[in-house]
Structures are given as structure tokens and as C-alpha cells.
């Protein structure tokens, strides 16, 4: 029999709070973390179409991590370290009592160490001094720098992997961790999603893709508005989410507090287009269906969906179309929320942070609001969407995450039966 997998710890670094307590309080209050980007030192924002983002403000890694680990890595991995530390403490896991080879780390990251990456590339091209490229450049930009440093910080010697599938990265990290524990290759996996690439080049790239909101530069809090008629693109965010996944038997043995069970997962490709989803929504519906089947559940049992919902015109409409296809009349009975309405699109962190919102919905019976859902787009209207927090018993929650490269993921969480 395959091992059941549960969530025993949570941690987060987000534009609306560092730490689960602050994050969840702000999320339930519908607080927006979207603010104006003042400048990309040393040059101003004038040339950028979009000028707003979900930024983690006043973050200094040394306030959270009292070792050299924090200094050796880029901002995204620092976020990951902080979130992982909180999640581990929250889980009550004592590493010194564990077999370190049975503790894994799986990180989802879309862009990686772009802060140092952009700085070093710029200097090299401007100054043409190859010997002045920082010796840490390669270790920092290598995409598994976060999974590596998190393992080093905690002595986790089990499977150590990094999943990079753009915006669905950490949903797949959750899924791969589920498989890893189910198959008996680890007792515990520290799952982290992290990205911090509100940087001049990456931000310009998303602007050039015409993917970002640009109509709300003077009113940043209004810019991220999934499913609303006046949405005009996504808002970039940054942050990290961490979840401790553990076999139910291991959690029981150490009498751990269990938030929820990770019950199912599906990974698919639309094999269609690098950045555009199939407009018929068939592949998204298929992905959700597969994840539910993996969990041994039916669409009729789903109570809550943490939607991918980035606030783009096409993406939101396709997701709703897919939800209607799969859930049929139940679609309007399911509570739905878009975490990106509060914090923007945190790319590689989005799946993990959405996963945290899903787990907390199961655990607390509270669903955070979808900010700026003021004027429902008829193409996206679902009765379970709300600008206010909702209270209802959630037994089964579904997390959606879709990434560039025609990539889809869905993860199913459910209330634990033990």
C-alpha cells in the first residue's frame, strides 16, 4: 500500500507578510501587497509600461537566518531559507532525532538568482572585465542553489531536487514530493517554492510580452484583479512558500500536528504554445480530473479551488471554462479564490503559496477573498468567488497551477481522516 502523505508545517515570505500568522491575517482581510516600484536603481521606471508589483519590503535575511547560509545565495533562495526555517519549526520536526537521509528537499523556482545574475551580466558587458565576474556567480545562479542551501542549513541528506516549470514550478514540487514519500524514498520532504525576480531585465521581459497589468500604475492595489471585467494582465510578485510533507505514519509516530493530507497530483502538457493556453480549456479540465482520480476522489467532492487566476484576459477565462466543464453544475457551489489578487504572481512560489492557502482553508474553514473582483466578467463568473472572506467547511481542496511552456499541474488536498 502506498504511503499517505500529510502536511505538518507551513512557512511563508510574501508581500502581505513574512510568517504564516501575518500572511493569513492579511489574506483573510483581503489586504493587497501590490505597490508601486519606485525605481530599479540606478535607472527610473519611466520606460516601463507596468510600474507595480507585489514586493517583499524591508527584507533583510540576517534578521531571520543567523548563519552564513543566507549571505551566500540570491534573494529568492534567501526567501526560501526563511520560509523553510519557519515551516520546519512549525512542524516540530527535530532534525537531530531524524535519519537525515530520509529528509528530502524539493524546490520549485522559475527564474532563480536573477538579482546577482543581472548585475554581473550588466557589469561584464559594460566593463568587459571577465576577471571581475564574482566567484559566486555560478553557484548563485545555478537553479538548485535554493534546494542546496536549504539542505545544508538543516542537514537534510535525502533526495534534493529543483523543479523549474515557470509558474507551476512549486505545484510540481508538491507533487514530486508526494510521489517521493508515497514511494518510500523519504519520510519527510521540505517543499519550497521561491522566486524573486522583480529585476530590471526580467520585469522588462514580462512587459515586452504584454503580460503585465499597465492600467493601474497610479492605483497599484487595483492592478491584480483576477476574473474581473477590467483586468488587464498579471502583476509580478515575489516571495516563498514552504510546506513540510511527511508520511502519515511518520507524523503519527512523532505525534505531529497535521494540517491536511496531500491526496493527489497530476502533471500534464498542453503541447500547444509557449505562453498561450488552449482556449477550449480541455487540457486544464483533464489535469484537474487526473489529480482527483489520483486522490481517489470525484469532482462532486471538491469544496474549494485555489485558482491559478493570474488576472490575464485569456488565462482566467480558460480556467473558468475548464472548471465548468469538469464540475458542471457543482462549479457554482465550490468556493474559489485567487491568491494572486493579494500578492501578485510570485512565479515559482505561486504553487506553494496557493498550496498554503488551500491547506489553511481546510484547516481553518476560512477562505480568503479575491481582491478587486468588483465587476465579474461574464466569461469568468462563478458563484463561489467573493470579494469577502468566506467561512465554510472544506473537506477537499484543489490547487491549480499553469506555467509557460504549455505546462499544467493540479494538486489535491483533503482533510485528514486520522
Amino acid at each position, binding site marked *: 500500500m502506498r504511503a499517505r502523505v500529510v502536511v505538518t508545517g507551513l512557512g511563508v515570505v510574501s508581500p502581505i507578510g513574512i510568517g504564516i500568522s501575518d500572511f493569513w491575517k492579511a489574506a483573510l482581510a483581503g489586504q493587497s501587497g501590490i505597490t508601486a516600484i519606485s525605481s530599479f536603481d540606478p535607472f527610473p521606471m519611466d520606460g516601463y509600461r507596468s510600474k507595480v508589483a507585489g514586493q517583499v519590503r524591508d527584507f533583510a535575511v540576517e534578521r531571520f537566518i543567523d548563519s552564513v547560509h543566507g549571505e551566500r545565495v540570491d534573494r529568492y533562495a534567501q526567501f526560501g531559507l526563511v520560509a523553510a526555517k519557519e515551516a520546519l519549526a512549525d512542524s516540530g520536526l527535530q532534525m537531530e532525532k531524524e535519519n537525515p537521509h530520509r529528509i528530502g528537499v524539493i524546490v520549485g523556482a522559475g527564474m532563480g538568482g536573477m538579482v546577482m545574475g543581472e548585475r554581473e551580466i550588466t557589469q561584464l558587458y559594460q566593463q568587459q572585465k571577465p*576577471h*571581475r565576474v*564574482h*566567484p*559566486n556567480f555560478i553557484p548563485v545562479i545555478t537553479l538548485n542553489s535554493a534546494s542546496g542551501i536549504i539542505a545544508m542549513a538543516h542537514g537534510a541528506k535525502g533526495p534534493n531536487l529543483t523543479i523549474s516549470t515557470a509558474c507551476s514550478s512549486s505545484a510540481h514540487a508538491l507533487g514530486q514530493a508526494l510521489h517521493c514519500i508515497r514511494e518510500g524514498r523519504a519520510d519527510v520532504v521540505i517543499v519550497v517554492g521561491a522566486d524573486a525576480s522583480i529585476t530590471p531585465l526580467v520585469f522588462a521581459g514580462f512587459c515586452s510580452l504584454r503580460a503585465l497589468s499597465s492600467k493601474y500604475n497610479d492605483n497599484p492595489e487595483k492592478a491584480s484583479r483576477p476574473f474581473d471585467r477590467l483586468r488587464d494582465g498579471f502583476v509580478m510578485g515575489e516571495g516563498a512558500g514552504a510546506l513540510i510533507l511527511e508520511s502519515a505514519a511518520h507524523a503519527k509516530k512523532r505525534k505531529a500536528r497535521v494540517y491536511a493530507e496531500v491526496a493527489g497530483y497530476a502533471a500534464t502538457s498542453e503541447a500547444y504554445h509557449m505562453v498561450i493556453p488552449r482556449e477550449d480549456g480541455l487540457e486544464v479540465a483533464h489535469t484537474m480530473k487526473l489529480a482527483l482520480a489520483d486522490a481517489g476522489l470525484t469532482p462532486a467532492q471538491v469544496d474549494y479551488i485555489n485558482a491559478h487566476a493570474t488576472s490575464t484576459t485569456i488565462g482566467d477565462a480558460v480556467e473558468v471554462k475548464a472548471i465548468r466543464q469538469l464540475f458542471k453544475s457543482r462549479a457554482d457551489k465550490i468556493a474559489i479564490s485567487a491568491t494572486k489578487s493579494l500578492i501578485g504572481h510570485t512565479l515559482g512560489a505561486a504553487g506553494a503559496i496557493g498550496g498554503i492557502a488551500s491547506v489553511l482553508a481546510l484547516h481553518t474553514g476560512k477562505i480568503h477573498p479575491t481582491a478587486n473582483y468588483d465587476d465579474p466578467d461574464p466569461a469568468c463568473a462563478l458563484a463561489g468567488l467573493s470579494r469577502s472572506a468566506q467561512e465554510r467547511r472544506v473537506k477537499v481542496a484543489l490547487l491549480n497551477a499553469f506555467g509557460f511552456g504549455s505546462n499544467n499541474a493540479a494538486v489535491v488536498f483533503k482533510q485528514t481522516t486520522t
Partner: protein
Amino acid sequence: MTTDPTISLKIRTALAEYLKRDPDRILVTQHLRDDLGLDSMAVIELLYRIEEAFDLQIPDQDLVGLTTVGHVVSYVEKRLGKSAPAAPIKKSGKPLKATKQSKPSKPKSKKKS
């Protein structure tokens, strides 16, 4: 051989900043790895800082002789004192009075590519 106090101080300050300790506690006699605990990557980072501070380029073949703080100070003095390409450190005049002429550091790279 007397060391230039400015160069010595600059190097010890760079080390102190890196190691987060008082520059006064960094001695020229200290071995970078055995006494100060710098691993091979940390030595490379230190030399990167020193290259910047003194506007130098340190060729790979010179790294092998730089095992103590004193070696680094003496090397930088030597390099700043003449414009010709750097000679390997072992040929660079009198050795500093290092506490121990410990294991010539063979910079084995532990880094995986």
C-alpha cells in the same frame, strides 16, 4: 622584510569583514585554511576582493603559494612594487615568518561542475 602597514591593514580588514571579526584579531602569521577556517571557495572570494581593492589580477598559478595572511600581504606588496608580470609567490623574495609552513595548499577543487 617589513610589510607595508597600509597594504597589510587593507587585507586584514577585507578578511575581517568577510569573517565578521575584529581586524586586530587577524594576524599575518595565520594560515588561511587552518587558522581562519577559509575553505577553497572562501579563499577565492577573498582574493576576488583583494583584486578589486588593489586593482590587480592574480593569475591561477600564483594561488598555490597564498596560504597565510602574510603570503597574501607579501604577494600584493610585490605585485604593486613592480609592473612586470607576477612571479610565482615562492620566488618572491624572503619568506614571511609564518608560524607554520604547513601543508602546501593544493587547491583541490571540491566544487562539482
